[in-house]
């Protein structure tokens, strides 16, 4: 099977073309660069944009981590990891610190990223203005003219209607004071991690055929109003039922027996690391893991 495909799936010409678009994206932070997105062995909407970035960048020395909604073992993360190691034969890891390329769907890991690392985010809807302008031709003009009043009007309407900004994940950000950008559907909790990130952040939208980037140490600000500042999801006094962490993004789980809501770290690799730290030397293993 392996011999039927080139290293990292693509032919070299395709990889070069994707890298050219990537370089342009890095040169213009937050600007969506169109690229000739290929059909991939995984479905459109399942991370083909991120996968194309990863495959175009990966070399034999790289160590890959893939997470899906915080989990290294989620179906899609496993699938993507399998495909990359199947066609490139490279090593994968679950430890954020060890990875050189981290492909992620909808989360930025809890462990702070370092310089030299590349975070590849999978993007379903790259256009932050699409909510109120369905036409691509029009949104391109709006970006060119830096005409973003619509984005603020949208937030304003939320506040009028609901009393608060009701954006869920994918709260739009302003990049380097120039482009309004969809940070991909990461929770609002992760938005501040993009600001002055030490790692290079690349965002790939396969179906919508766009690549964009936040180079290291770039200013990224979630859009808001002075008198109604941006707020992240709050888990207040909640702590992880497995590792006891607080101040991280949590999954809310309904306990089968008691029917009550319990919380645990969404970032499974972080959670595991915390548990290992807490474990006394020679202690018994935690069966819940």
């Amino acid at each position, binding site marked *: 099977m392996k011999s039927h495909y080139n290293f990292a799936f*693509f*032919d070299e010409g395709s990889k070069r073309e994707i890298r050219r678009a990537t370089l342009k994206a890095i040169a213009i932070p937050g600007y969506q660069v169109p690229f000739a997105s290929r059909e991939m062995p995984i479905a*459109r*909407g399942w991370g083909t944009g991120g996968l194309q970035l990863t495959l175009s960048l990966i070399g034999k020395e790289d160590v890959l981590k893939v997470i*899906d909604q915080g989990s290294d073992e989620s179906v899609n993360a496993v699938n993507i990891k399998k495909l990359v190691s199947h066609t490139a034969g490279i090593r994968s890891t679950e430890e954020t610190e060890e990875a050189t390329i981290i492909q992620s769907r909808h989360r930025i890991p809890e462990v702070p990223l370092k310089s030299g690392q590349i975070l590849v985010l999978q993007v379903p809807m790259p256009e932050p203005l699409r909510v109120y302008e369905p036409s*691509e*031709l029009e949104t391109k003009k709006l970006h060119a003219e830096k005409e973003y009043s619509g984005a603020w009007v949208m937030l304003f309407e939320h506040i009028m209607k609901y009393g608060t900004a009701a954006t869920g994940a994918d709260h739009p950000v302003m990049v380097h004071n120039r482009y309004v950008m969809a940070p991909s559907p990461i*929770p609002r909790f992760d938005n501040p991690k993009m600001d002055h990130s030490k790692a290079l952040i690349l965002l790939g939208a396969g179906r919508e055929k766009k690549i964009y980037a936040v180079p290291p140490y770039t200013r990224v600000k979630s859009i808001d109003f002075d008198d109604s500042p941006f707020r992240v999801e709050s888990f207040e006094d909640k702590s992880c039922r497995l590792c006891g962490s607080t101040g991280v993004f949590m999954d809310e789980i309904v306990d089968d027996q008691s029917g009550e809501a319990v919380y645990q770290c*969404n970032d499974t690799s972080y959670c595991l690391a915390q548990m290992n730290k807490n474990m006394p030397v020679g202690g018994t293993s935690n069966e819940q893991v």
Partner: protein
Amino acid sequence: MGYVAVKGGTRAIEESIKRLKYERLKNGTVLDVGQIEGGMRSLIDQVMSESSLYSPLLASLAIKQAEGSPEEAVFLLRAYRSTLPRKHYSRVAEPERMRVERRISASFKDIPGGQVLGATTDYTHRLLDFELMSETEEAVQRWLSDFYEDSFRSDEKVPSEYFPKVLDYLRKEGLMEICEIDDTEPDDVTKKSLKFPSSRSQRLQILTRGQTGAVTSLAYAVIRGYGTLHPTVGELRVGSLPVYIDDPVNESQEEEESYYIGDVKVSEAEMLVPVTVEKERGIEEVEFEVGYGICYGQNETKAIAMGILDNSLEQGEARYPTQDEEFVLYHIDSVESTGFISHLKMPHYVTFQSKLDSARKTKQTEKVREGQKDEITL
């Protein structure tokens, strides 16, 4: 919780894939790829067309692997296509030089060269043929030898396989504008992604790769009410187009030096759309516009539907969604639409948690507001 438990995802996936294989094999039937290629002509044609990859053999393999699902087979072939380098570009293929198997016009009864019905289901009664349940190889062989004998014995002059285009006849009559042949290199949406306003070559390419059902449905909307068209089939032809490439070594552009590399079977539709054109001093005349459709294999509905949409998208000012190029071109691709619909099955725990947080916050503010209201009324 099933599918994103903290651990154990990998094994669950392996078991699921095993289960899928079991479903394909559980009856103990080994489906031969050759049998699929021999008997699933229409499905193969549809899959090749939506995949933009002309290979009956690979399409048959994809259909086998996909257990007959067109969307899955197209997906497999498109992913395979992504790994193929472009080694050559063909010369322009002229549909006039098509070896015609079927060719009809709904506009003129007596077209130069005559109507050739060829193979079509158009005139069959759609009654289930229960005799096919017990079709035997001997019976098939017998039927075939009778068929060959018949066709050779017939005294009728075998008509030429090459036919002039019906539309050229209209052009000679002055009923249609004569257009210059435009051989500029077409844009390729698989090399450079679509930008708007799109070029006609981009539109035609997206339409011909479109999902058969989606292309048909949107074209149906055009002629039913969401468009102003009442088109007529000027000419519909099905046949084989020879493909030539220039000599890759000598880089000569001469036709005589080019190499024949094979045939592709296509369906081509030229749709006639009457329009009223205002001439000098307010005098109106009726002229005809053309909508052009072409696709791999014999898939006449798709070719005709493509012709309708091509013309609809030429209207410029979009009064209907079917005239809006972004609406049509962004939504008819099989891999893209089925992919994005199916991605909804993926876990959305983080995004949903985030939305939940917002929903709770709005509820809280609502309560506060209601509280305030109560205070006021008190």
